């Protein structure tokens, strides 16, 4: 494949210094541009660890991670921070908005980190993204005044503000009810289609897994299944 965005080559990860516990036992796979992929598996199977390494939040003990053919697993802490800021969009289970800021300010934070301040152009883009996630009217609400689903949608808009190549979600619907989960899925699908963003989400939700293009199933630090859903 020539349009590979992310690639993992024999990634191993262990924790602990005296007693080493290996969480990932040599994971290899690649992610093509524009794919919508779910990672499923039981708790403790290493899904989140893999996602954190792919998202440059963590580094592998051995093996290589490549972004568009460029190795980034051995970058310095600062380089990784910059890499995350420019190429990765994160969405977490617990939303993690900054309660001190309003919805639009939260969306703009990655831009602030990148350029110090946001230009008019960025503010307009933030407004567009909030419109995309259906929160145009809640722009200036403090994030603490938003519902769980609304907060998660703000987090999605925030993940998209720097035009990342990959959107990474660690159980993004884990905290949401069925209806909201469906809305969030639709949003992901929409973003995937319209912006062409590659989406990789760790999920426990079978419905979402069933609706994604590809499913990677993990068990005890290994990939046990990797298959494509037949699109309806």
């Amino acid at each position, binding site marked *: 494949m020539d349009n590979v965005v992310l690639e993992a080559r024999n990634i191993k990860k262990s924790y602990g210094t005296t007693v080493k516990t290996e969480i990932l036992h040599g994971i290899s796979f690649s992610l093509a541009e524009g794919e919508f992929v779910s990672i499923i598996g039981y708790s403790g199977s290493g899904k*989140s660890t893999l996602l*954190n390494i792919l998202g440059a*939040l*963590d580094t592998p003990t051995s093996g290589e991670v490549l972004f568009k053919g460029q190795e980034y697993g051995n970058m310095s*802490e*600062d380089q990784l*921070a*910059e*890499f*995350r*800021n*420019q190429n990765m969009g*994160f969405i*977490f*289970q*617990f939303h*993690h*908005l*900054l*309660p*001190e*800021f309003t919805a639009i300010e939260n969306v703009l*934070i*990655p831009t*602030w*980190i*990148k350029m*110090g*301040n946001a230009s008019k152009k960025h503010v307009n883009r933030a407004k567009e993204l909030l419109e995309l996630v259906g929160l145009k009217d809640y722009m200036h609400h403090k994030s603490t005044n938003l519902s769980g689903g609304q907060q998660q949608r703000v987090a999605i808009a*925030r993940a998209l503000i720097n035009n990342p190549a990959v959107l990474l979600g*660690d159980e993004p619907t884990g905290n949401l009810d069925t209806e909201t989960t469906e809305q969030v899925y639709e949003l992901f699908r929409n973003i995937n289609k319209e912006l062409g963003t590659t989406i990789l989400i760790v999920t426990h939700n079978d419905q979402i897994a069933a609706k994604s293009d590809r499913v990677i199933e993990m068990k005890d630090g290994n990939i046990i299944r990797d298959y494509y859903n037949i699109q309806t």
Partner: protein
Amino acid sequence: MIFEWKVAVRFLKEGKGQTLFILLGITVGVGVMVFLNTLITGLQDNMIDKAIGDSPHIWISGDADFYQLKDTGENSQSARGNFTVKDTSLGDWELIEEILKEREEISAISPVAEGNGFVTKSGQTSPVLVRGVDLEKADAIYKINDRLIDGTASLHGNYVIIGKELAEENEIVVNDLITIQLANGTTQTFTVSAIFDLENKSVNSSWIFMDLSRAQKLLGLRNKVSRIEMQVHDVFTAEDVMTSIANRFEGIQAENWMESNASLLTALQSQRQSSLMIQAFVLLAVTLGISSVLAVSVVQKSKQLGILKAMGTKSRSASRIFLFQGGLLGIVGSALGAGLGIGLVKGFLWGTSLKTGVPLFPLHLKAGSVIPICVLAVAACTIAAFLPARKSSKLNPVEVIRHG
């Protein structure tokens, strides 16, 4: 930088109660420092002014031994009665005075011809010190005109000015005639033109101001003076100015107030040191307070910091958020503290003047002492933020995200 600043300001704004509390701490600390500093400085200035404000700071006389070596003339040593008096008078005093006038650090110069004698009035006799001066020049040092209790100051012709106690003891009033007998036997009658109160009992009971040339003649000094008295603008430079004068002229002997008031100086110094010590501890307490509040704040904000880091905030940048908070608290707290300090000073002046109409002693707020305190406080607050800042830079985003 703008981003860190934005987050720092927002963190402070949102944690209103905590921010106000810590600001209050800095404000009180800086306020106390400003007030204490002004109070001690004012007190010391007042003490110095009281002690030496109206007296000479430096005085020079002739070096008897020097002249004795130079010429064995008549005045170097003379026998009076059965004891020997060393002559310490100054010959070329007019020339010396001219040269001293050019020195900017000297604010007043007054040549004096002095000698012991007795005043006789209606049969009573009192020992006196006759001081021949140029009234205008002596006034610059002793403020005679401002401290007259009766009469008009004049040393023309036969006029002299005497002290309050001398006048009271001998029942002398203005325009009375008094007879002065000097140690060399000369006797002459003078008219009292005015009576002074120099706030010193021994001076008030013994000094008599007389015209300089008159005194020179009476005391047999010819064209010499006993000494030249001076005041300097900054009293604490007296020692240095004296040394440089002593090096400039040959055959003189110089002295200054610092030598003759050594115990006063020691007292002032210890007072200043204890005031500095108190201020240092106040600053330390404020610094520790800020440091602990910010350290708690790092823990409180660890979720936010984790998410900021996940989104690409570098460690250095994360620590800057807390340094900015420290600095910002310092700036606002110092400004408020300076205001409080000024308020306390005004309150002190007002409170102590309630009964008498004049404050206990004057206090002068100087930008030169308020600004360094503020700068120091801002620096201390920023330094206080260092430890919390380090803590925030070491925070691992993965930990925060994993544990929600």
